[in-house]
């Protein structure tokens, strides 16, 4: 145990890490935005459709949730272009994967949000003469925030951590940055110590910020 800690090499290449963490956040933000659109759309369709449509949506949700993200990343990046005529770079490919992945989790989030809106409120909407669409827009969606906002925050933090898997297809996010520095400097302990701290600090700062936002946007009842 005569390993001498030395962080100078890490600070020299710190731009790889700072760029990496920003890219990680960016990937997570794009994925949750697209994922939320997928999730909300499918959740609304789910609650207002028959069994066949529901079965299709459930199949999508269950498939994604029960397969490793790593395999999905490989499948979309290496597999898909061999059968469909598409070409995309690693980052785009990863965004597609993570968005579809996030969508599956968010269908469940929005669905339980829609289910949790008290029936009395919907009846009140009906009594006022609101159309189903108006009831959705003005009653259901605004009142489900209390349930969905915290779940959205948690999903975002999960996605932020999941972006580390993008490193396997050489997307230069934080984990890839760490590997890059590691391969050149061999300061293994220091690289992973610093990287871990960055993930923790960034993750908890984001979570703290999101909790503040939740408090502002929550509809009390």
């Amino acid at each position, binding site marked *: *145990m005569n*390993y001498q800690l030395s962080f100078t090499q890490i600070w020299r290449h710190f731009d790889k890490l700072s760029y990496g963490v920003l890219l990680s956040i960016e990937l997570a933000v794009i994925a949750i935005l697209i994922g939320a659109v997928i999730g909300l759309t499918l959740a609304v369709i789910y609650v207002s459709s028959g069994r066949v449509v529901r079965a299709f949506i459930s199949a999508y949700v*269950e*498939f994604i*949730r*029960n*397969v*490793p*993200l*790593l*395999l*999905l990343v*490989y*499948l979309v990046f*290496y*597999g*898909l272009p*061999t*059968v469909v005529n598409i070409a995309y770079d690693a980052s785009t490919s990863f965004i597609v994967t993570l968005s579809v992945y996030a969508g599956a989790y968010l269908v469940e989030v929005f669905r339980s949000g829609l289910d949790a809106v008290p029936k009395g409120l919907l009846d009140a909407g009906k009594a006022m003469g609101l159309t189903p669409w108006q009831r959705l827009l003005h009653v259901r969606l605004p009142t489900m925030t209390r349930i969905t906002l915290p779940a959205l925050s948690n999903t975002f933090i999960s996605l932020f*951590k*999941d*972006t*580390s*898997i993008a*490193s*396997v297809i050489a997307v230069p996010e934080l*984990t890839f940055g*760490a*590997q890059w520095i*590691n391969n050149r400097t061999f300061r*293994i*302990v220091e690289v*992973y*110590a610093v*990287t*871990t701290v960055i*993930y*923790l600090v960034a*993750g*908890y700062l984001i979570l703290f910020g999101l909790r503040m936002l939740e408090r502002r946007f929550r509809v009390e009842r």
Partner: protein
Amino acid sequence: MGELIDAVVYAMPFLMGGLGTTLLVSLITVVLSLVTGVVLGVALIYGPQPVRWVIRLLTDCIRGIPILVLIFAVYYGLPPLGLNLSSFWAAVFALSLFKTAQVIEYVRGAVSSIPRGQMEAAKSIGLIFPQRLRYVIFPQATRRFLPPWVNGVTDAVKGSALVSLLGVVDLMQAINQVIGRTYEPMPLYLLGAVMYFVINYSLSSLSRVLERRYAYIKE
């Protein structure tokens, strides 16, 4: 179509070998994390304040780090500090850390949902602490612990795919190796996805069955 079947027949023995490793990694992880998670979870609830802080800090840290980084940190980070683990055990150790933090949360949730009066009633008939846990708290907590825990086993199975990145030949790595020889990525990734799906869907279905069964037991 015939070629596809040929490819599957060719690949199957490799994939089955990989699947064995995937299941082994998952099993060891699940057992290790169950034992340490329950012990630390109980310590988090009933232990003295400093112990609780340490466990809280530990779980919050682990939960904030991506599993992949955890695996790399254990595999590459420990040897320079004088601790050598094979890639298999490094991966198992890292996955167990991640799962332990999860189990601690499940235990905390299950135990803290039991009304305080249960502990008091158990005290009042003269049971000592280990007896109170064994005869009063655990039997009730188990019903709340089991459904999320079984569902959480899927996280171990899915997470185990990351051991392929350390060169361990699990199902994921076996798929990659076969693709390296056949240049047929899509059918193999789909086949692998189905295999993972079957295992994990069975587990999550079991979790739902347990949840429904225990929902009938009124408290």
